[in-house]
C-alpha cells in the first residue's frame, strides 16, 4: 500500500486530493503511473505522457525510475508555479 497525493490541476482533474493504492512494492514510479493510467478515464487523461507532471516520493522530487516501497507517500503534481 502507498499513499497517493494529488495537487493543483491534477487534484482537480481526479476530483480527490489523496487516496491509498494497492501497488505491488517494490515498484518504480513508472510502473505506478502505468497502473494508474490503466484505470482509464480521468487518470489516463491527467497522467498522459503528453502532459507535464512531476512526482515526489516521501516529499523528494524524483525521476521515473525511482523506487517505491511499502508505506511511501507518492505525490503527483504539475510543474510548480510559485514565487
Amino acid at each position, binding site marked *: 500500500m502507498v499513499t497517493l*497525493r494529488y*495537487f*493543483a*490541476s491534477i487534484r482537480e482533474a481526479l476530483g480527490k486530493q489523496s487516496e491509498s493504492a494497492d501497488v505491488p512494492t517494490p515498484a518504480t514510479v513508472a510502473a505506478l503511473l502505468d497502473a494508474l493510467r490503466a484505470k482509464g478515464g480521468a487518470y489516463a487523461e491527467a497522467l498522459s505522457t503528453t502532459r*507535464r507532471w512531476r512526482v*515526489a516520493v516521501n*516529499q*523528494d*522530487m524524483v525521476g521515473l525510475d525511482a523506487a517505491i516501497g511499502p508505506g511511501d507517500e507518492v*505525490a503527483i*503534481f*504539475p*510543474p*510548480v*508555479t*510559485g*514565487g
Partner: protein
Amino acid sequence: MATIRVQTNDFDLSAEHTQIRARHRDVGAIASFVGVVRDVNDGDGVSSMTLEHYPGMTEAALQKIVVEASSRWQVIDATVIHRVGTLLPTEQIVLVVVASRHRADAFAACEFIMDYLKTDAPFWKKETTPHGARWVEARASDDIATQRWENK
C-alpha cells in the same frame, strides 16, 4: 541560520530586516526580493490569484535551496516567506531576504534562492481572469534562469 515560513497572512519586510539586524552586528548588506500580484498575465486581466502548496515538502524544499545558497556565498542570515490562499493585485506573494557581510554575496544568494524557488518549491497558482479561472502554466524562462546557476 534561516527562517522559512508558508502562511496566509501578509508579511512586513521592515520587521524581517529589523530582526536580522538585531541578531547580528557584522551584517553589512541585505538584499531582498518581494513578488507582487500583477493585474495582468499573458495578456488577460487578473482579478485574483489562489496559491496552493504541499505542506511539509514545500518548507523542506525552501530550506534545501537556502542551504545550497549558503554553501555558495557568504550568508549570515536568510528569510523566506511565501503566502498561500487567495491574493489580489498589488498584494505581496513572496519575500526573500539575504543578509551578508558584503553586497555581491547578498545579491547573488537572493537571486539564486528566488530562481530555484520558482522551479523547485511546490507551489501552484490559479488565477481568475474574465475568461474564468485557470492554472498558471510553468514558464520555460524560469527553467533557463535556474540552469544558468548550474554552469557557475
